[in-house]
């Protein structure tokens, strides 16, 4: 549905997007993840035909964005970072205007406006001025605007930014519902959002694609080895040596220490369950075992490690699962 090939955008000497390539299949939700200034918005703007790329190719719904911009735009709905509202128009007026501009036929216009207002739950705000709406409602009107011409592709730039928790859940739910009929790209820097709504993630940093994978695979990939967290009441004694002698343990590191209780991170070979041995060794030494749990690398840590230079090298050295690209 969307195919991006070697997309590059330079502003003078600054390269905002550097050789980005990815694909999105029909009906899929793709999460676009990256720190501020990573090039998310620039990529999205290129895909929507707002600005041209310096190099590369982008095909949206079967049409090249640069060669057949009108056809591509007809099939794309775009919600920019700030909803593009005219403050002196009422919600209904605004949607009518957008429907006209997007070329919705006049006999369907009323029906489409009613549908999107219902879908985004703004029907009760129809006669309010868009300039007077709260942030959450503005965002929803923005979403309604993107949906009005029933596009195949939806491009949403931080759709949940500035919403309250309830609205965030509602918006995510709405995006999931839309995924069947529409192909969606959404950008965000909220990580749980990606793991909850997206089927695939593109992590982008400094204009380059760092990884493309499913959220689960990404988490698993960086885990590499199993890590346990144990909290021990060792009466001041050092448990590192004892823990290190357990078969299968590759590394023991002190994680925290408070009021005589010491927490250790114990890494072990992959696929080997050391929990029983750990517990036995601690109890046999006469210490109190207060906590024992596996530490799972969250998507947040994956993200951080992928977007910070030094850890990136470590990640690249590890076996890369299929479908992932690490430069």
């Amino acid at each position, binding site marked *: 549905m969307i195919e991006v090939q070697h997309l590059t955008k330079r502003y003078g000497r600054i390269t905002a997007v550097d050789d980005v390539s990815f694909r999105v299949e029909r009906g899929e939700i793709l999460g676009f993840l990256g720190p501020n200034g990573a090039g998310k918005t620039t990529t999205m703007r290129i895909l929507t035909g*707002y600005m041209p790329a310096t190099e590369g190719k982008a095909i949206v719904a079967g049409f090249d964005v640069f060669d057949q911009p009108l056809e591509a735009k007809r099939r794309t709905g775009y919600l920019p970072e700030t909803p*593009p*509202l005219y*403050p002196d128009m009422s919600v209904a007026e605004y949607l009518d*205007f957008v429907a006209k501009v997007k070329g919705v036929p006049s006999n369907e216009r009323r029906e489409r406006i009613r549908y999107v207002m219902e879908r985004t739950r703004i029907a009760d705000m129809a006669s309010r001025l868009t300039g007077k709406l709260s942030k959450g409602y503005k965002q929803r009107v923005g979403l309604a605007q993107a949906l009005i011409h029933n596009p195949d592709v939806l491009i949403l730039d931080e759709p949940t930014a500035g919403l309250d928790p309830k609205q965030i859940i509602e918006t995510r739910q709405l995006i999931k519902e839309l995924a069947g009929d529409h192909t969606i790209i959404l950008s965000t820097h909220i990580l749980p959002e990606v793991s909850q709504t997206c089927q695939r993630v593109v992590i982008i940093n400094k204009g380059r694609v760092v990884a493309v994978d499913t959220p689960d695979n990404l988490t698993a990939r960086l885990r590499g080895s199993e890590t346990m967290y144990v909290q021990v009441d060792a009466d001041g004694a050092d448990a590192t040596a004892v823990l290190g002698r357990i078969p299968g343990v590759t590394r023991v590191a002190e994680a925290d220490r408070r009021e005589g209780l010491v927490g250790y991170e114990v890494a072990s070979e992959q696929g080997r369950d050391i929990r029983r041995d750990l517990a036995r060794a601690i109890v046999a030494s006469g210490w109190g075992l207060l906590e024992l749990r596996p530490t799972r690398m969250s998507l947040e840590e994956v993200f951080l490690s992928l977007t910070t230079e030094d850890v990136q090298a470590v990640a690249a050295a590890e076996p890369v699962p299929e479908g992932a690209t690490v430069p």
Partner: protein
Amino acid sequence: MTNILAIAQKELKSYFASPIAYIVIGLWALLYGWFFTFILNYFLRQSLQMSQFGAQGPQAMNINQQMIRPLLQNVTILVLFLMPMVTMRTYSEEKRSGTIELLLTSPITDFQIIMGKFLGAMALYGVMLLVSLIHIGVLFAFGNPEWKPVITSISACCCSAAASSRSGCSSRASPTTRSSPAWSPSPCSCCCGSSPGWAARGDRQRKRLRSGSRSSTRWTTSAKASSIPSTLSTI
């Protein structure tokens, strides 16, 4: 076509939703009224002098040539400044509020966007023109001008307004966000700016022959009329 009209309608609505339309129309009415009274006074004084002049009897003054022509000539200069004032915000404002992203990602061409904005500005000029037609109407009610050169002049005024609003509407090409180049009148608008006066001058010879004696007998009634536009302009 629907989308051009939609943009034009939106533009016109946004002019009237903000104070800008009222300020511009007010300023226009005020200055137009001022020019009108000023030139009318001059015209009346001239007529009086002419009627008292010489042994050949009363001389005729041509209202088209001596009144409407200088009026529109002066007023065109106003348009030259007012229209860019109105239109210079059209793009920079969209860019500032981010709504430009909506327009540029919609399935419409740049030409359609510019046309829509241009027609919106011209519609506002149409409203301004209605205000000025009151004054011309007064001349028709109390004087006896020829209507053909007046129509030509007004359409020339429209061309001039079109040229000067163009400078704001198409300023998207300029690299600045706040489109200050809109203020610099282009050679094109300067050319058109001189046309209303030029058009009114068109058939000067013919008019002199025709409207000669009639307007001189009417001058006393036009004197009364001069107080009306001045009150109009202050509204």
